[in-house]
């Protein structure tokens, strides 16, 4: 199949055509030509879209699709289609399924279910058996069947020795370990950021201290063991500082931040909307400023939507009974596009996460695989339920004004627009 993309502004710092508007000819999934103007001689399928911008395909390192076990929340099929239409050509799915993805059979099942889609799926294996934080799962076996990193999703590794052993063991096969930053003895059953708003609402606070102490502990362990540690979804100013210092020391630590933690504060909690119940919790504007600076300075490597579909039965309930989590694939770009510098945003969705999770990078140049996200950065709209493609509708961005619309993707020799 041959495809001609007309007048696309290329946003790819690794490409010689960065910030230039070009026509792109793609044949059988490979970029054949990038020129100022390409004539449509062969009656190729042509893509001509308003204010079209193109970047490398985005990769979200933390999504949940429910399947197997929670298909009422989301299925792999609809999840991957949602990801494609939201601009993601790759997603890493968390192991919080039922059964937990802690063995090669479940990893294989998930991989098999994800065959033949535009968006590629990369499973994250559970670090411990059944994510119970007791015994290490068969990490090497899972890696051989496609798991790209190992963690227990939002369950912290409470036992410091377990993290020590995991970091040491994974070095045998260059494995990446993820540790959710929360000290449960401090967090207890905290629901929202401990600050003036939690005090006003009488909601049990989750102090920033819980996150920062766990990160400090993990970094101490990493310094002792060496190895590669990824800390997902940091949310406080002090966490940024801790990771900055560790990187300066030369530790192999990387981290991500969620889209909602970059733009929303705990002021959102005032009417007890359970969609605002997320982990890590929404923090303060001081934290947001530090997180954005952390991104710009290269301390924070990755932005994730932390897409977590939760069915209405677990969200349309009293705040304290609601499950944590928001969907985010559909709204990520529109929420961040005018807040984060474009080059930083695109790098944190493309080259950075692909390098860290060791998956293929496809630069926008002739001869490379066409793995592309198509978007219009200037389209402003109010995000409503009509924009949600996920099975579950629990979006923290409902009724927010977003700017930037995603057209879709070209990947795996498929076009989803």
């Amino acid at each position, binding site marked *: 199949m041959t495809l001609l993309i007309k007048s696309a502004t290329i946003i790819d710092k690794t490409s010689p055509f960065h910030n230039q508007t070009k026509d792109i000819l793609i044949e059988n999934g490979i970029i054949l030509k990038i020129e100022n103007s390409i004539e449509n001689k062969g009656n190729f399928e042509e893509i001509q879209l308003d204010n079209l911008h193109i970047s490398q395909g985005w990769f979200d390192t933390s999504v949940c699709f429910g399947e197997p076990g929670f298909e009422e929340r989301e299925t792999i099929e609809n999840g991957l289609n949602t990801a494609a239409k939201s601009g993601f050509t790759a997603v890493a799915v968390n192991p919080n399924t039922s059964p937990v993805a802690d063995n090669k059979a479940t990893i294989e099942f998930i991989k098999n279910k994800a065959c033949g889609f535009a968006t590629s799926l990369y499973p994250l294996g559970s670090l411990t058996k059944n994510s119970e934080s007791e015994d290490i799962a068969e990490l090497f076996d899972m890696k051989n069947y496609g798991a790209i990193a190992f963690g227990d999703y939002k369950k912290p590794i409470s036992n410091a020795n377990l993290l020590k052993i995991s970091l040491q063991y994974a070095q045998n096969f260059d494995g990446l370990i993820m540790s959710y930053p929360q000290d449960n003895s401090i967090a207890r059953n905290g629901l929202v950021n401990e600050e003036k708003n*939690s*005090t*006003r609402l009488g*909601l*049990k*606070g989750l102090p920033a201290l819980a996150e920062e102490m766990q990160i400090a502990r993990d970094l101490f362990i990493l310094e002792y063991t060496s190895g590669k540690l990824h800390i997902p979804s940091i949310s406080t100013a002090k966490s940024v500082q801790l990771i900055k210092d560790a990187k300066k020391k030369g530790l192999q630590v990387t981290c991500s931040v969620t889209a909602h933690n970059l733009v929303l504060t705990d002021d959102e909690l005032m009417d007890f909307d359970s969609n605002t119940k997320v982990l890590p919790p929404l923090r303060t504007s001081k934290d947001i400023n530090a997180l954005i600076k952390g991104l710009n300075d290269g301390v924070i490597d990755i932005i994730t939507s932390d897409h977590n579909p939760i069915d209405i039965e677990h969200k349309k309930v*009293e*705040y*304290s009974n609601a499950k944590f989590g928001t969907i985010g694939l559909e709204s990520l770009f529109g929420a961040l596009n005018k807040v984060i510098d474009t080059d930083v945003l695109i790098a944190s969705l493309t080259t950075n996460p692909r390098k860290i999770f060791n998956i293929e990078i496809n630069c926008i140049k002739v001869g490379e695989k066409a793995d592309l996200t198509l978007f219009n950065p200037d389209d402003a709209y109010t995000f409503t339920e009509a924009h949600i493609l996920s099975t579950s509708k629990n979006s923290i961005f409902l009724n927010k004004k977003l700017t930037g619309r995603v057209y879709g993707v070209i990947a795996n020799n498929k076009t989803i627009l």
Partner: protein
Amino acid sequence: MSQLSVKHLIGIKHINEADINLIFETADHFKEVINRPIKKVPSLRDITIANLFFENSTRTKLSFELAEKRLSADIINFSASQSSVKKGETLIDTANNILSMKVDLIVMRHPNVGACDFLSKHVNARIVNAGDGTHEHPTQALLDSYSIREKLGSVTGKKVVIVGDILHSRVALSNIYALKLQGAEVKVCGPKTLIPKYIESLGVGVEYDIKKALEWCDVANVLRVQNERMAINYFPSTREYAQLFGINKPLLDSLSKKIVIMHPGPINRGVEITSEVANSDQSIILNQVENGVAVRMAVIYLLAEQIQR
């Protein structure tokens, strides 16, 4: 006649000073009514009220029930221990089932913060919050302010210290909002483990020395030590709590002025305050109970008044 600015009474933070004045003026009238030989008015005889208590309560439930009966409302009572909630029914379903029986107003106590707010968005009835987790207990705060006003003439400019477990207390939070709204000065006093870290952001002071706190104030509102809300020990023993924060007669007598002692009940005698203090002429604890009925009558009457009938 004036009306409340809200459709529900979910929290003091949603109402304004004019609402409080209106509630107090209406309560004055009802207080006179409940002291008549015939303690009842027919105002709400076409209104049905459901008292939904998802958490144990004795005095608040009795007070609401009495207030409703004095207004001639029809009432139904529901408590979690004898309901289908234990069978897994959700709050919305429980409430909607009850509303299908054509209930006009719901008085609800619930262990979860924000439960009344949640209910008000999903059911078509007036809601009165009778306590939601550690969030608010607005009628308690109103009756506390009403009792201060009755005793001292006004709340404005008075110095009130709230003593005890502030961290787990909806009474403290509602009281802080109500007192600040009426221009009182507020301090909290208790073990540091039971004072929220960011409490000063609500415009209140913090004092850890009970004697200094009492010396400063005109009114001490002493809260119950809520052992049932504590998942862990925030202090080693009630004995030690009483040593540090208990109010006894010698302590009261050592102060340079006579302060007013309040307590929302039930009292742990000998822990927060001694019997001698509870029974002294400085205590207005039983006035609070009487005023509770009048204030709750006022709140229910004013909300029911907005219902088209």
